């Protein structure tokens, strides 16, 4: 399984070249990768259906405290998710190649979507808590790239950031929860934790673990009130929405809850929190979907509703709820993936996705219509589609809820009425009725764009009519792994006339009624208030939080970094004096034993030269250029001292850095006005005191440090091990690139980020944003910058 995940990542990285090589055919070739992975996973079906699990493990990081293994665990639950990810992924790669065929960033799409696919597959297959988290974060990160795919548009960037912040903060909570769970039990593998449920549930940290893990899962799976980022993420291109925001990523939270149900579940608080949030989410979002006219927004809110349903089922925790969960996840992935892809096809071919501006597309796009119609019938829960079986099971589970079954079933029915109406809206409005003039002349989408939705829709029919195709092989293992104990059942379309069936008929009738009066309902003031409260309210809260954070940062920056360099220096030096000086005096005390025995004549000469150079700077330093060059001379002097003591690398670095620093500082100084020392006498005295005390403290500190006996253990180790272990005789370089390469990597990343920051700061001035503090200084130095150009 490691090979499958690694292969997807590897192909993702070379996908731009595959695109260059095969042009339009690249989509069909790249789709072979998820398809192959799908077949590989499917080959485990008989093994899993027989009640077995598969475990594979590779050591990744080995620490004294714990090990992080790239461990993979395949049981019913992870297998179903893996099949959904790779199966729908195959169609999405194809679909994307058609949808974005005229788009310059298509290669980037392939790369990002495959990276996402690898990460998502990692989440569901990983067994180790830490590796689950790593893959989890990777899905947040790749989804950030994918949502902000059309990065030229401001709302895409905003939606991407919104999704990243919400899921990122949730991810941090999840990490804390997983680490607590690991330390509480001493087990870092989910497969081992599954048998330790009682230890976790009775542990004093249980509540903390639960809330932290739920924080991660609820943000990722868009539970109310964190649901707002998901409809916002519809700014992404449709292939991305269809894949991430309906079939896969948003289900990561549901997956995690289902995975951990045997560990954390079946407590009262679990029932209240998970069941309660799920129920609130499904009710609120189902009706919100009716307040929009954009097909993708309608589908987005119906997706939130589906996620709420899944969460509620996990919260209920009964055998029938687990059965319903398994069937519901599969049926939702199929119909919602198909509907999103059709919505994208309509947008692509007709130029709009607003249902009010569409109509009569059926003769023009017959295949898309067929796919949409079947998928919508499944979503509405009408027999003989698979969605009908799913909804019947949800109703059965709600009727058998351990707490307040009457309330749960009523709310579920009310929510599903809205979903029936939403299903009708997304297929009847655009495809049936009178022909409406569309922005583009509509025609059928290319095969790459209808093969996915049509296949998924046909599967919805197939599984509905012949449920035995998947029940024993997949649904039973899934329900068993979520439940924690083996359960057995078979599915059938016809259950006889029972309460769920009557409720289904009621739902259908209610939905049709709502659909008839949808235009009036949508425009009614009640719906407007509802939308403002539940859809816009959380967004306003989020915007307020972000704005508050920014203004806090702005206030802090204005106070501490007011643009006067001398103030920065005072702040830094005084902080250093207090913090280091206190620790120094308290922990070590003064040491005064300078010895001049081993100092050579040339070292004395050099030291005097450095002091003289400094003196000249201080005495005649009226221009900044003189001062900078003077400081450079001092640096060269230090380099000579390094050289005398045999530190050639250090000396070379020092010389080069000094040279480049002088050049950089000169480039900056050209734009800075002449020195005007307008300090008062008192502030000059104050600055002098600070400067002398800082210098004195550093001198004393170094004397104290050199007075302590030197432990040569580490340096001797490096000297001895350098050649035998790392094949290099230059110890400095060996330390940098081998022994302590991780440190170097961190430093280089800092350098890279600093470079980007400098670039961004300087380039930003060109756009002259009025509120940026340096736009004012840019004006004053305008004349100087003209001279700079001739440099």
């Amino acid at each position, binding site marked *: 399984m490691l090979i499958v995940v690694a292969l997807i990542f590897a192909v993702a990285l070379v996908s731009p070249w595959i695109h260059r090589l095969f042009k339009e055919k690249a989509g069909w070739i790249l789709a072979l990768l998820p398809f192959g992975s799908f077949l590989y996973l499917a080959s485990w079906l008989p093994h899993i259906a027989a009640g077995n699990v598969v475990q594979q493990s590779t050591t990744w990081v080995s620490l004294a405290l714990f090990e992080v293994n790239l461990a993979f665990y395949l049981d019913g639950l992870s297998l179903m998710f893996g099949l959904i990810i790779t199966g729908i992924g195959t169609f999405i790669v194809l679909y994307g190649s058609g949808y974005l065929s005229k788009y310059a960033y298509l290669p980037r799409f392939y790369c990002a979507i495959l990276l996402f696919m690898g990460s998502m597959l990692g989440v569901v297959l990983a067994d180790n808590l830490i590796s689950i988290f790593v893959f989890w974060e990777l899905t947040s990160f790749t989804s950030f790239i994918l949502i902000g795919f059309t990065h030229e548009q401001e709302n895409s960037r905003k939606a991407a950031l919104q999704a990243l912040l919400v899921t990122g903060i949730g991810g941090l909570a999840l990490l804390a929860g997983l680490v607590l769970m690991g330390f509480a039990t001493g087990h870092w593998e989910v497969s081992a934790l599954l048998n330790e449920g009682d230890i976790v549930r009775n542990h004093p940290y249980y509540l903390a673990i639960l809330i932290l893990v739920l924080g991660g899962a609820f943000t990722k799976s868009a539970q109310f009130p964190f649901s707002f980022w998901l409809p916002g993420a519809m700014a992404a291109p449709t292939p991305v929405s269809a894949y991430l925001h309906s079939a896969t990523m948003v289900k990561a939270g549901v997956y995690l809850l289902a995975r951990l149900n045997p560990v954390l579940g079946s407590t009262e608080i679990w029932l209240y929190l998970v069941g309660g949030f799920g129920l609130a989410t499904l009710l609120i979002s189902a009706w919100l979907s009716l307040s929009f006219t954009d097909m993708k927004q309608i589908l987005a809110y119906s997706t939130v509703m589906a996620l709420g349903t899944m969460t509620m089922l996990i919260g209920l925790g009964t055998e029938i709820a687990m059965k319903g969960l398994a069937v519901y996840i599969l049926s939702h992935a199929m119909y919602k993936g198909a509907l999103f892809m059709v919505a994208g096809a309509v947008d692509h071919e007709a130029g709009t996705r607003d249902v009010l501006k569409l109509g009569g597309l059926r003769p023009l796009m017959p295949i898309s219509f067929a796919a949409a119609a079947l998928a919508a019938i499944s979503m509405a829960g009408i027999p003989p589609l698979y969605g009908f079986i799913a909804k019947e099971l949800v109703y059965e589970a709600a009727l058998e809820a351990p707490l307040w079954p009457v309330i749960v079933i009523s709310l579920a029915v009310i929510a599903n009425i809205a979903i029936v109406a939403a299903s009708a809206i997304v297929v009847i409005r655009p495809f049936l009725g009178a022909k409406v003039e569309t922005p583009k002349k509509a025609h059928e989408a290319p095969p790459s764009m209808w093969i996915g939705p049509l296949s998924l829709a046909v599967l919805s029919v197939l599984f509905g009519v012949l449920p035995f195709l998947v029940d024993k092989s997949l649904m039973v293992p899934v329900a068993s792994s979520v439940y924690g104990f083996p359960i057995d059942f078979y599915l059938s379309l016809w259950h006889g006339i029972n309460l769920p069936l009557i409720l289904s008929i009621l739902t259908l009738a209610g939905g049709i009624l709502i659909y008839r009066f949808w235009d009036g309902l949508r425009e009614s003031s009640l719906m407007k208030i509802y939308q403002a409260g539940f859809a816009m309210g959380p967004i306003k809260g989020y915007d307020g939080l972000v704005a508050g954070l920014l203004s806090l940062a702005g206030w802090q920056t204005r106070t501490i970094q007011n643009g006067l360099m001398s103030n920065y220096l005072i702040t830094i030096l005084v902080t250093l004096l207090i913090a280091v000086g206190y620790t120094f005096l308290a922990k070590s005390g003064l040491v005064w034993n300078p010895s001049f025995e081993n100092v050579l004549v040339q070292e004395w000469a050099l030291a005097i030269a450095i002091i003289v150079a400094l003196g000249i700077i201080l005495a005649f330093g009226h221009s900044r250029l003189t001062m900078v060059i003077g400081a450079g001379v001092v640096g060269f002097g230090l380099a000579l001292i390094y050289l005398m003591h045999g530190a050639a*690398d250090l000396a*070379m670095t020092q010389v080069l850095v000094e040279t480049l620093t002088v050049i*950089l500082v000169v480039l900056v100084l050209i734009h800075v006005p002449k020195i005007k020392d307008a300090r008062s006498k008192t502030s000059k005295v104050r600055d002098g005191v600070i400067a002398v005390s800082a210098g004195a403290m550093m001198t004393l500190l170094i004397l104290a440090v050199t007075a302590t006996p030197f432990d040569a253990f580490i340096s001797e180790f490096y000297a001895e091990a350098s050649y035998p272990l790392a*094949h290099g005789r*230059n110890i400095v370089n060996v330390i*940098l*690139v081998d022994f302590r390469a991780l440190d170097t990597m961190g430093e280089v990343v800092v350098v*890279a980020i600093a470079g980007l920051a*400098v*670039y961004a700061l300087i380039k930003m001035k060109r756009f002259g944003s009025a509120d940026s503090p340096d736009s004012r200084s840019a004006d004053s130095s305008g004349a100087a910058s003209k001279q700079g150009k001739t440099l």
Partner: protein
Amino acid sequence: MKSLILHTATRLMIGVLVLFSLFLFFRGHDEPGGGFIGGLVGAGAFTLYAIAFGTEATRQVLRIHPITLIAYGLLSLVVSGLIPMFIAEPFLTGKWLFIEWGAFDTKLSTPLLFDIGVYLCVVGFIVTVIFSLEEEG
């Protein structure tokens, strides 16, 4: 800067400087030098060129955008760390390949790739800053 001496000297020096930076880079594992120092010399070479002929000409000589250099540098770092993971060893473990040609032997290694990353990042960083300062001022 319009100066005949600087122009002529730069034309002669640039090749030597770049070669010298590569020399420092490759000897770095055994003798003073390495990716950081080599990168600084290389960046110095392009800085000199930018002072003499302007940034536009330097961009053409460099061919690659300096930020892209940083990106490739980071990529080398990460790849050098990932290679040992494919044979189930921890991130950033040094892996070596000794090729014997007879006359002189070659050592290829993941630390070498790592050092290439350092080199590229250093050059990319300094050239980015120099270009930005000169062009935007």
